[in-house]
């Protein structure tokens, strides 16, 4: 039997406790960020102080796991130093890679830290081989996180034309837009994941029980009304219910989550190097459960055993899952 390609499991951690949980559950690599606007999960009470990051990297390395630090927002004019300093700190702490999106920050990091491994964030929206080859040639990027808009066939086609690793999302929340190019949150709140690190920032979210319904408002706009007993979605505009002409419903996207466990063999055969679990905003309990489940799936795949899928539906937004764009069908 031909040896099956090894896949790296890249897992989220919003807190040091979640990082420890991910390592103990079998993560090969953990991605996390500092507690400021330099990363796209800048939520209250979440993320790592400088001291916590240094300790976390030591902890992970001591157990054979890597730490990839996301610095994947786009620096504000006049505040570039904040992002540049964050890269310096990652290099100083011994991070295994930094995950970047901004061209200026990539250039700055490649020039000042030639030994620091650079990954291209999904926020850079690199969705074709030419773009990826440019990032590899210009900045020495070693891995690209692909946007969640590509089919397995498109991923395989890209991998045939590039010499860097690709990483794809395997489980968790979905974005309907190509990441890095979505401004829906800005329209309602003035803040976006691209610049401020938070889609639908909690400071602009309001939930209220009204007449037996759960009302969700973002920046004062009612975006969802859920009857008792129905699953509640995240308060993002893309998962809101709106009227458009005669249609009333989910105009952008149904509130479902990605679960591509069943596609692990196809993704491996398409040349993917790493599988990423979404969810730095989730708890340690979620992180541990999902990581353990996917580590078992990868071990099963490597050993030629059938992969169990669909066991994590209760943890997902909308309590429903989809294989997303990986397997596109007409409807």
């Amino acid at each position, binding site marked *: 039997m031909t040896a099956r390609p090894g896949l790296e499991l890249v897992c989220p951690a*919003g*807190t*040091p*406790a*979640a990082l420890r949980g991910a390592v103990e559950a079998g993560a090969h690599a953990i991605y996390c960020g500092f507690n400021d606007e330099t990363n796209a999960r800048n*939520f*209250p*009470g*979440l993320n790592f*102080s400088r001291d916590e990051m240094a300790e976390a990297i030591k902890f992970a390395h001591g157990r054979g796991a890597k730490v990839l630090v996301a610095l994947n927002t786009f620096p504000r004019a006049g505040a570039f130093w904040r992002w540049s300093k964050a890269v310096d700190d990652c290099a100083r702490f011994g991070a295994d890679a930094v995950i970047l999106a901004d061209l200026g920050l990539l250039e700055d990091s490649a020039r000042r830290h030639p030994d620091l491994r650079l990954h291209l964030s999904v926020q850079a929206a690199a969705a074709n081989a030419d773009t990826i080859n440019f990032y590899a040639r210009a900045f020495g990027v070693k891995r690209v996180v692909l946007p969640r808009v590509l089919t397995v066939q498109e991923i395989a086609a890209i991998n045939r034309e590039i010499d860097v690793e690709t990483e794809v999302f395997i489980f968790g929340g979905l974005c309907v837009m190509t990441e890095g190019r979505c401004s829906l949150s800005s329209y309602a709140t003035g803040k976006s994941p691209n610049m401020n690190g938070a889609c639908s*920032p*909690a*400071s602009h*979210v*309001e*939930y*209220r*029980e009204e007449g037996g319904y*759960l009302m969700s408002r973002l920046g004062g706009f009612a975006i969802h009304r*859920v009857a*008792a*007993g*129905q*699953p*509640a*979605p*995240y*308060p993002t505009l893309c998962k809101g219910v709106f009227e458009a002409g005669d249609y009333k419903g989910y105009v952008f996207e149904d509130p479902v989550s990605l679960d591509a466990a069943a596609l692990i063999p196809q993704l491996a055969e398409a040349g993917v190097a790493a599988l990423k679990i979404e969810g730095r*905003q*989730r*708890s*340690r*309990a*979620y992180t*541990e*459960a999902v990581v353990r*489940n996917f580590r078992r799936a990868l071990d099963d795949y490597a050993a030629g055993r059938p992969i169990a899928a669909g*066991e*994590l*539906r*209760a*943890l*997902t*937004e*909308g*309590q429903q899952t989809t294989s997303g764009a990986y397997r596109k069908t007409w409807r």
Partner: protein
Amino acid sequence: MSRETPIPIFPAAGAAALRHLPLWPLALAAGRLAPSLVRRHEKMFARLGEQAEKTFLIDPADLPFVFVLSPRPDRPRLDTVRREAAGHWDARVAGPLAALIGLVHGAYDGDALFFSRDLVIEGDTEAVLALRNAIDNEEIDLAREASALLGPLETIATGPARRLAGALGRWTGVALTRGENGPLT
């Protein structure tokens, strides 16, 4: 953690009985717990940041009383009051007692409970998120925290308290101590 069994609900007869019993023993313990938590979990308050100035209504929906939490590092308070006497709050977190305890002990994921409507949040969402993340990172064990209230007896009380909480947890299906997740894992 894939939740396959429903969250246990406090028996209605027990809740009805509690309606007529005095709250002061629980209020006394809760009142002593708040400053002890501040002392033992300093990092939690760094993570809370300015949200520590907010007032949280912790509402076990299957019980006839609520907890009013003011996690200010300089004068922390955890008051136990009848629901109708709760007064002002900035953020409300409501759900079955078992869900709230399970959240503290890492047996449940807060977002998953929100999606399934087992957990209701109202008011200041930013404050709720900060509190959730701060508690999650501290890996608090209420049996251990209760033992700490005994002062010098803590070291000999913690083991038995955790074993008792674990046994009760297995019997009731409630995650009464960290690592004793009962049917939830």
